Structure formats: structure tokens, C-alpha cells
């Protein structure tokens, strides 16, 4: 008797759990949900943006919008979207990743980048260095990263967007210094990667490795992530070293047409991306250490944090992302040829 009862009880509990789950997920026709697939360091940024946008959307249309976010290395996220991850919008680290989504999954048109202002980049960033307080290894500029005995932390270019900006910035530096010597640039980048003990899959993973696990002497970092490190781990433990020269990183955003049309969320998804260019959002962007594309809207205190340094663009030096991605980061490309993880004898 008791066994039958317990069986019944177990089934009832299971049914109850399922019912509560289903009912919790059920939304009134007034509610809409969109998914933002983003790159690794933007967690805090989009938390703030999503909250502000939801408030604004509710006020203007009366509709409740929930934005679900997924974060990870940009390349990895792009491949996930190609593999079927349902994204209403993608906000990745570089154009080549969204190009790949357009090309391989055909879920958005190939001319997506021209649909929004500033090459579809509501914010930009650049690459700087983070070192331990006191800068014990005396890191001042790019050549110091290739020095013997310096341990460099940078993520995996195969999965991370930031990692690719890092790589290209280093290449561009040496190219500039030697007035166009591609061979020298390649040797330089190779020397830097010889100093890299571990490649994490995303910028945030590298931050954890550098800041939390105390690996490495210098971290090649997104500017926004660098400031976040100081904020989270303490300005008394780390300092930012701004190199003489860096690359202008333009992380773009796009609506994924096929998905929004299927889910009927085009209107709100489009509004979400448009919102990123609004003064309110640009303020949030600046406050989260990203360089706003409309600086006039941002708080001057936040803007003062961004140092002026010589920035080159990927178009000027590398002929655009399509070319750079194919040449350096595709299977068998330059990165595959030069990267040899530090051997046993070196690190054990």
C-alpha cells in the first residue's frame, strides 16, 4: 500500500514541478523575449543596457521585454549561432564573425554592416596592457612582450575575438616600426606567442587566469576589460600600461533576420540595437569603459579615462576583416603556423 502511495506521491511531485515550470514560462501576449548572443567581456555592459532598455521599452510601448544573454569567446559564439543557437541579435567582437554567420547560415544578409551607423558599431574599444602593481617587469610597450622571461596572457584567436584584435595590434606595431616588413612582423608575433603559457577560450577566461590565478606578467586586454580588472580586483593590485600604438577595435552588432522573422521579434530587436546609439545608452557604454561612438552624449568623467593613443584600423593595415581572417586565422593560416604551445621542457 505504502509503495503505491509513494509512487503516486513521486509522480504528483514531478507533475507539480513540470506544471510550475510551464506556467512560469508562459507569457502573456504582452511579453516578448529576445536573445542577445554576445562576446565574453560584455556581461556587465549588457546587464546595465538591458535593464535600461526594458524600462524604456515598457514606458513607450507598454510591452514587457526580457533580454536573454549568452556570453563567450566571439568566434565560439559565432559558430554556436551557425550551429543552431537561436539569436535574435548578435553583438560580437569583430565583423568577420558576423560575416561568417551570414555566409554559412544565411540567417542575415551579407551587407548587414551597412545597416547601422558607424559600421554597425555603437561602441569601440582598443587594446592595452595590464600588469601587476609596480610593473616589476618594466613593461612599457609592445617590444617588451617579446622579451625573454616575460610571460604574456592572451586568449585563443581561434575562439576569442579579443585575441584576434590583440594579434593584429601586435602585427601592426612591428609592421609600422619596420616600415612594412611582413617577415619581421611575423617573427615578432611568433616571439610574443612563445611567451604565452595558456590560451583561454575568451577574454574573460584570460582575465581570470591573469588576475585570479596570478599567471603571467602582462595581460593583453580589451581596454574595457582592463578597467574592469582595476575595479573588481583593486587598483592597488594592478595597473594599466597604455602602449604607444594600438588598433581601433570595432565590435559590431546585428539583427539576425531569419530568427526575428520566425519569432516575430523584429520590431523589438531592431529597437534594441537602435537604442544602443541613443544618448542614454551611450552614457552607460562610457560608464562601462567602452568608447562610445557618440562621445558628446557621454559623461566627461568617463571620457577622461580613455587615453589618446595612436590608433590604426584594420582596413588601413590589413585590408579589412575578410582578408585578415582568411590569411591569419583560418585553418592552416598564419596563426596555426606560428603557434607552438610552450614545450614540456620550458614550463615543467
Amino acid at each position, binding site marked *: 500500500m505504502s509503495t503505491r502511495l509513494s509512487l503516486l506521491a513521486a509522480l504528483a511531485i514531478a507533475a507539480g514541478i513540470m506544471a510550475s515550470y510551464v506556467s512560469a514560462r508562459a507569457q502573456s501576449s504582452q511579453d516578448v523575449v529576445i536573445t542577445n548572443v554576445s562576446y565574453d567581456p560584455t556581461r556587465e555592459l549588457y546587464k546595465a543596457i538591458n535593464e535600461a532598455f526594458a524600462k524604456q521599452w515598457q514606458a513607450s510601448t507598454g510591452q514587457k521585454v526580457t533580454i536573454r544573454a549568452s556570453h563567450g569567446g566571439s568566434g565560439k559564439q559565432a559558430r554556436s549561432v551557425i550551429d543552431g543557437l537561436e539569436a535574435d541579435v548578435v553583438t560580437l567582437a569583430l565583423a568577420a564573425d558576423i560575416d561568417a554567420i551570414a555566409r554559412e547560415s544565411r540567417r542575415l544578409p551579407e551587407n548587414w554592416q551597412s545597416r547601422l551607423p558607424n559600421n554597425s558599431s555603437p561602441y569601440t574599444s582598443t587594446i592595452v596592457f595590464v600588469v601587476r602593481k609596480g610593473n616589476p617587469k618594466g613593461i612599457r610597450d609592445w617590444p617588451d612582450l617579446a622579451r625573454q622571461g616575460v610571460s604574456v596572457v592572451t586568449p585563443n584567436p581561434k*575562439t576569442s575575438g579579443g585575441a584576434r584584435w590583440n594579434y593584429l595590434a601586435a602585427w601592426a606595431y612591428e609592421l609600422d616600426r619596420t616600415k612594412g616588413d611582413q617577415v619581421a612582423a611575423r617573427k615578432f608575433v611568433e616571439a610574443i606567442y612563445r611567451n604565452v603559457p595558456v590560451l583561454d577560450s575568451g577574454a574573460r577566461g584570460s582575465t581570470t587566469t591573469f588576475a585570479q590565478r596570478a599567471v603571467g606578467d602582462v595581460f593583453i586586454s580589451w581596454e574595457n576589460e582592463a578597467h574592469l580588472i582595476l575595479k573588481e580586483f583593486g587598483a592597488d593590485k594592478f595597473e594599466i600600461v597604455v602602449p604607444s600604438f594600438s588598433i581601433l577595435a570595432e565590435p559590431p552588432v546585428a539583427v539576425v533576420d531569419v530568427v526575428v522573422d520566425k519569432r516575430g521579434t523584429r520590431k523589438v530587436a531592431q529597437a534594441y540595437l537602435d537604442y544602443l546609439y541613443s544618448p542614454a545608452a551611450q552614457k552607460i557604454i562610457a560608464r562601462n569603459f567602452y568608447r562610445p561612438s557618440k562621445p558628446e552624449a557621454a559623461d566627461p568623467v568617463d571620457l577622461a579615462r580613455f587615453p589618446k593613443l595612436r590608433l590604426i584600423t584594420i582596413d588601413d593595415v590589413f585590408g579589412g576583416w575578410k582578408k585578415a581572417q582568411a590569411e591569419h586565422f583560418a585553418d592552416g593560416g598564419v596563426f596555426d603556423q606560428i603557434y607552438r604551445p610552450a614545450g614540456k621542457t620550458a614550463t615543467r
Partner: protein
Amino acid sequence: MSVVILRGWTSLSLPKPSALPGFGITFGFAVTYLSLIVLIPLAVLVARAGELGFDGIWRVATAPRVLAALEVSFLVSGAAAAVNAVFGVIVAWVLVRYGFPGRRLLDAAVDLPFALPTAVAGIALAALYATNGWIGSLFAPWGVKIAFTPWGILVALIFIGMPFVVRTVQPVLQDLDREVEEASATLGATRSQTIFRVVLPVLVPAILTGVALAFARAVGEYGSVIFIAGNMPFVSEIAPLLIVTKLEEFDYAGAAAIATVMLAISFVSLLAINAVQAYSQRRFSRG
């Protein structure tokens, strides 16, 4: 297990007509479920790896970084299993033979690594053994780092393997006939002679089983290790992490190849466990 194998072998005929109903439905459901959930997906894995061909798989499996990861996984798992063998026996002995306040509680607690989610264990151990953690800070003044080095992996694998030896040895110890020990004593053996010549040999099959189980579990462990390992290639990168990395790079065939190699090794270990059990049953069992 060997009893089951024995019974299986003696019934190499068509199912005997049984008075009990339900064979068709239960057997059919069990086999279908097994195939759908386990066998077919595993077959797809091997097939995917097979895309590379034998030499392709060999090339992936013997790439320096893969070999290093397998080496780290196996060496540290072996070390952890060895530590658990020694301490597992001690703990089992203490739990069975000695009485002390809280013994029941501790006995129940031994299963904690079974019940605790691996991610929880991972962050807890990482917090404990980091240089500013409760234990890590004790070693920090000597410049010894535990977390984020292979030592951290060792700690994590000792944790998750701990219950295996204890739980396989305990029942044997409990069943042990004290008369044998008493007889040994009356024949003039010292206590340590009794322990090492009379008691321990009886425990050997159970210890070996426990060690093999702990080892097999440790090799594939992921969640509790990745938070405390440094994840640095050639130093503290474990094989399962390498599989995940390859997946993230969308090198599916490569991931499948490493997974297949690990599966093959697991399969061999399973056979070895069975063989060891059978051998030690014959060799050490009291009949």
C-alpha cells in the same frame, strides 16, 4: 560481477519459457532505451572520429599537446588513486574497527564526493587552496602553490576518488572473521604480522577494485578539476578540457578522436578491472 558473468555463460540458449510474463516488454524497452540513449550516440562518436581514418586518429592522439594532456590526466589520476588506496584502507579500518563519537556521521559523510556536484567541489577546492585560501595561505610563505598547478589537480582527484576505496573495503572488513586474527595471534604472530600477512591479503581484491574505480573516475573528471587546475597546456591541462577546447574551436573530428581514445582506454580499464577482480578472487579469496 563475476557471478553474473558465470550465470550468463551457463545460459547460452534461447530464453527458457518462463512462468513470469513481461519478458518481451521489459527486455525490449531496456534494449531500445539503451540503444537510443547510449549505444547509438557512442557509435556516432566513433564514426565521427573514424572520418579521420586510423592514421588521422593516430595523428591527433599523438600530437604533443594531446599526449601531454593524457599524460597529466593519467599520471595525476594514478597518484590520486594511490593516495586514496592508502588512506581509504586506513579510513575503512578506523570506521569499522574503532568506536568514537561521531563515527556514524563521518561514515555517512564519506559519500559526500558522490553526492556533491562537481562544480561545487571545484570552486570550494579552488577557494581553499588558492594562495589566499585557508590552506593555500599556509603554504604560500614557502612559495608553494597548490591551486592552479598539477598539485591542485591532485587534490581535486583525491577528493572525488576518496569514497571508492573506502566503500569497497568496508564490507569486506566488516565480514572479516575475527577468529582468523585470533588464531594467528595464538600461533605467535605479532599484531603487525597478523595485519600484513593475514588481514591485508584478504582486502587486496577490494582495494584493487576501489583503486581501479577511483582511477577510472579521476581520468574523466572535468567539473571539479577545471576550477583548480591551471589549464596550461603541457603542465596542468587535462584531457577532458582539451576535448572541450577542440569543441570550442569547432574541430569536431579532433574532439571526437580524443574522446574515442579516452573511451578505448576506459574500455580497456573496465576489462582490466574485471580481470583483476577475477584474478584476485582466485588468488586471495578465502574460498
